């Protein structure tokens, strides 16, 4: 009886104490309360949130980041309370998590930033903040990194920054009130570069009374204007993302990786790779912190050590390039938006079929071909793989007709690494393939292929002679049965179907300079020269690969 009474008393008191502790902990001691109490300006201490039902956002981030909500006083002291930097989107219209990721409903720092188990979308690191644009935006017509660099150089050379601010630089050398204080160009591409900017500048130059106009602006050539406009169109307020996307599309990554239905299939589809859940990502071989950004960075340093058995070659990138590619990977995400929230670039890309990459030959070649064929078409060698052909070789381009190139690009080389790039496969449109072919001609310094007037098949040599000569001269590189080796596989029906007899004949006769394929028609000290008849016999023999093994 007495023991029971004591037990009752003490367990009741314990329960009461625990309840009071919990009540205090849950209501009074919340970190966001302390944060608001600590503000230099007294602010109303309460839970704050940004609710955007259309986006499914209930973001309580502003309970700590009070200054980022509209109508709130700007309290100094803890930087957490600071207002949001100037951005295109009002945080009160869009919420926080739609751009930054993280867990909007949470009210504890770690939970809210998503640095906890079981939150699949942690906040993007601050240095990768504009990767969040990728959730809704598709930056269109991104150009080759060299075009971007040309534009940047031009801006510097023409001294645009004297009057204009651009990506946080320039425009500040003079007092703000000066007549020549031009508008900030950091986001000029988002609404489109004004059509008559050049004419207007010229008019100002002649009519404006300020003498500075006469000296600070001069005529610009048409090609430079085009470069400048292309560059300004890419200024959408996310310079790092544009640089990152541009770099990705210059290294030929899409030759193996598909994004949004366009690209090769040798590597994984990257369309949503930035949304990957770190909790479900294998970090067992990753040094450093277990964040997606670090995973990508480590992976770019040495792919096969992070994903065992990966065939992705080590690209030998600089740290800056690794950071940019990581940035682009993080931007590959896509949030489901109600129609009213769709930005125009996304409508254009997903509903109207506009490309996110520029469709000039150089950019297309950079995005889809450069990884294997080399940035200048010089061919590539990677450990453990057969060498990739030098498609920029002038010897090749001189005999490869546009039709041959088109067939090869559209249908690929079944049985080899070259994938098919037609609309149904790799996703390139006919006009884009034409642009790539034109760019190949440029790589070959304008080398064209003269039509020889011959029928497609004309070789009528002796098969047996051809067989003997093949075994003697060709088999060491191309394999006894034409299966390939150091040289490419000749027993490939797709190749033989696309190649004319002239193409095969001339390839053997002239060889390929700057590759290991010698010119068998030229005299040489180390091997006998083949006569035209002998070469024709080899071509005739090669044709026998078409009918059977």
């Amino acid at each position, binding site marked *: 009886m007495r*023991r*029971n009474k004591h037990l009752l008393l003490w*367990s009741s008191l314990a329960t009461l104490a625990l309840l009071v502790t919990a*009540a205090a902990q849950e209501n009074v001691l919340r970190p966001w309360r302390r944060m608001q109490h600590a503000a230099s300006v007294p602010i109303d201490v309460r839970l704050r949130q940004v609710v955007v039902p259309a986006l499914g956002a209930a973001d309580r981030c502003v309970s700590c980041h009070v200054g980022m909500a509209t109508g709130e006083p700007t309290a100094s002291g803890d930087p957490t309370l600071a207002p949001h930097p100037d951005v295109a989107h009002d945080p009160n219209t869009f919420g926080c998590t739609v751009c930054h990721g993280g867990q909007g*409903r949470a009210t504890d720092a770690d939970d809210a930033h998503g640095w906890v188990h*079981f939150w699949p979308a942690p906040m993007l690191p601050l240095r990768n903040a504009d990767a969040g644009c990728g959730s809704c935006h598709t930056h269109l017509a991104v150009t080759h990194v060299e075009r971007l660099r040309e534009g940047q150089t031009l801006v510097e050379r023409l001294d645009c920054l004297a009057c204009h601010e651009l990506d946080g630089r320039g425009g500040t050398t003079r007092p703000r009130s000066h007549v020549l204080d031009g508008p900030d160009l950091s986001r000029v591409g988002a609404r489109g570069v004004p059509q008559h900017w050049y004419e207007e500048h010229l008019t100002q130059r002649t009519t404006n009374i300020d003498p500075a106009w006469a000296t600070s602006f001069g005529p610009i050539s048409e090609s430079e204007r085009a470069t400048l406009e292309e560059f300004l169109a890419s200024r959408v307020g996310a310079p790092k993302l544009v640089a990152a996307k541009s770099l990705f599309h210059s290294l030929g990554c899409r030759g193996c990786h598909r994004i949004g239905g366009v690209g090769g299939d040798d590597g994984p589809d990257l369309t949503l790779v930035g949304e990957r*859940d770190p909790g479900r990502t294998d970090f067992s071989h990753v040094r450093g912190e277990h964040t997606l950004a670090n995973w990508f960075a480590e992976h770019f340093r040495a792919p096969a050590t992070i994903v065992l058995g990966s065939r992705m070659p080590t690209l030998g990138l600089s740290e800056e390039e690794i950071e940019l590619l990581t940035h682009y990977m993080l931007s590959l995400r896509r949030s489901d938006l109600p129609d009213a929230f769709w930005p125009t670039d996304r409508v254009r890309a997903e509903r109207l079929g506009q490309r996110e990459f520029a469709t000039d030959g150089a950019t297309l070649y950079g995005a889809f071909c450069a990884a294997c064929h080399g940035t200048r078409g010089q061919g590539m060698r990677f450990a453990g793989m057969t060498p990739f052909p030098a498609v920029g070789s002038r010897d090749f381009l001189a005999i490869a007709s546009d039709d041959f190139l088109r067939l090869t690009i559209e249908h690929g080389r079944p049985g080899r690494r070259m994938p098919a790039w037609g609309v149904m496969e790799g996703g390139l449109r006919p006009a884009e393939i034409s642009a790539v072919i034109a760019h190949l001609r440029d790589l070959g310094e304008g080398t064209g292929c003269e039509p020889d007037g011959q029928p497609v098949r004309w070789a009528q040599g002796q098969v047996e002679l051809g067989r003997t000569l093949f075994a003697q001269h060709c088999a060491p590189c191309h394999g006894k049965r034409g299966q390939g080796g150091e040289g490419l596989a000749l027993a490939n029906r797709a190749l033989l179907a696309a190649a004319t007899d002239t193409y095969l004949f001339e390839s053997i006769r002239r060889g390929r300079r700057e590759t290991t394929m010698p010119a068998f028609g030229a005299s040489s000290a180390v091997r006998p020269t083949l006569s035209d008849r002998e070469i024709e016999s080899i071509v005739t023999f090669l044709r026998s690969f078409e009918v059977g093994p």
Partner: protein
Amino acid sequence: MTTATPPKPALRRFVENLRDAPRRVRDSALRSGKANTDRTRSTFVFDNVFLHVHPVRTHRWSLRWSSTWGLGIASLAAFGVTLVTGVLLMFYYKPHPSAAYDSIKDIVYVVPTGRFIRNIHRWAANVMVVTVLLHMARVFFTASYRAPREFNWLTGMALLAVTLGLSFTGYLLPWDQLAYWAITIGANIAQSPREVTDALGVTPSFDPGGLQKFLLLGSDVVGEEALIRFYLLHVMILPMALAALLAVHFWRIRKDGGLARPADVDQRVIDDTEATYPVFTQAPRKTYQIAALVRGRTAAVGRAPENTLPSMPHLFYAELAAAMLTVAVCVGLALLSDAPLKELANPAVPENPAKAPWYFLGLQELVSYSAFMGGIGIPAIVMVGLSLIPYLDRETAGTGEWFGGPGGGRVVAQAALVGLGAALAVEIFAIRFGWLREWIPDVAQLWITLFNPGTVLAAIYAAYSVWLVRRYDSTRTGALGLFTCFLCGFVLLTVVGTHFRGPNWHFYWSPADWPAH
């Protein structure tokens, strides 16, 4: 009263009545005033709608902590806690896949003390499962299921089933990955009769497993139908069923003569009168006997209440103490450890390993060998066996005593060793050497259904129990052995399933050794 007091002015009467109002409210509520005499202590009990299921006097034997360890009351208290916290959670919870997860997040992050209430609810539910199981073990080991209490043993088993049902249905409601895949596993266990119907080739025409799963989920997969179904079961049907069964359970305790006691109980209990409230503090105006006739031999019938004490306050303090201790434990655990909440449920990304709630992990371990035997066969055998125990064991020796019966504690200790040893041996063997499928890849599934680690273990236990029956010439001893074995087996398999099984249900020494995703 001849001198008539002059009538008071109405206003003064009003003031006096107002002053007396609190006392009168108390008196009218309690009817018989303060419980300070034997008579008022009795009326305190049977005048109270909530207490009248208790006897007015309770035997000293039943009041000893070691008789029950308060496990029944603890279960009830845990249920009460889940009830209160559950109703609070219902204010915010939204049972639809599009809103459920977010509403739990809101409860955790925004609702004042919401996280804490959710934690209490979760811990009280787990405490309830544990105390119900322990309560059952207590009743078994003290042989309290025997006549006339056989039926209450059955009611208790029904309560166990409803308790597990409540816990299981609550598991899905957060709609996170943990919930989603645990329920998927649970539903697949329900579907396990398919193993046999598939093997017999009759599934297209006769598919009780599929039907069971469909009834559970309202669909082929866990989806919104399953969620609303589980919600309804969790907040309405099962609590009501539990309340009804509880009423029967308590009423039968009373009608079956209170707690079971040894036949010679009166010689055993030492009368320590000093520590109790005095009996008969005033001359009774009326003799209060037990309020109803009860069947069978009970201490109270035809005897003076010498070894009994007034329930008010002795029993009620004991009950309140046990209940309050349970509440304190639930609240304390809730403060120490948060209820889990994983990512939003994603039907496209299975958890690996997907584990059922912990109390089903023993079954899941058996299911990994044979879905039918683990999911249906062995649980059914256990349930039927448990139900039959009071009807098979008609002995009287040892009733009301811990480990009562021939052999007693020695047999239980031995059985615990046998139970753990056999389970461990079978598990080690199966983990080390595999089973039929690894040895004979194209063996018919029916052979595995019949011969698997689960059935082997059950057979060992059964054989041991039969041996005990013959050795001690007592059904009770056999039952003691069998119950202990199954209890140990359950614990061991649950531990293996919880801690030592990783992705693809492979064996791992620790979750830290699991390969990365």
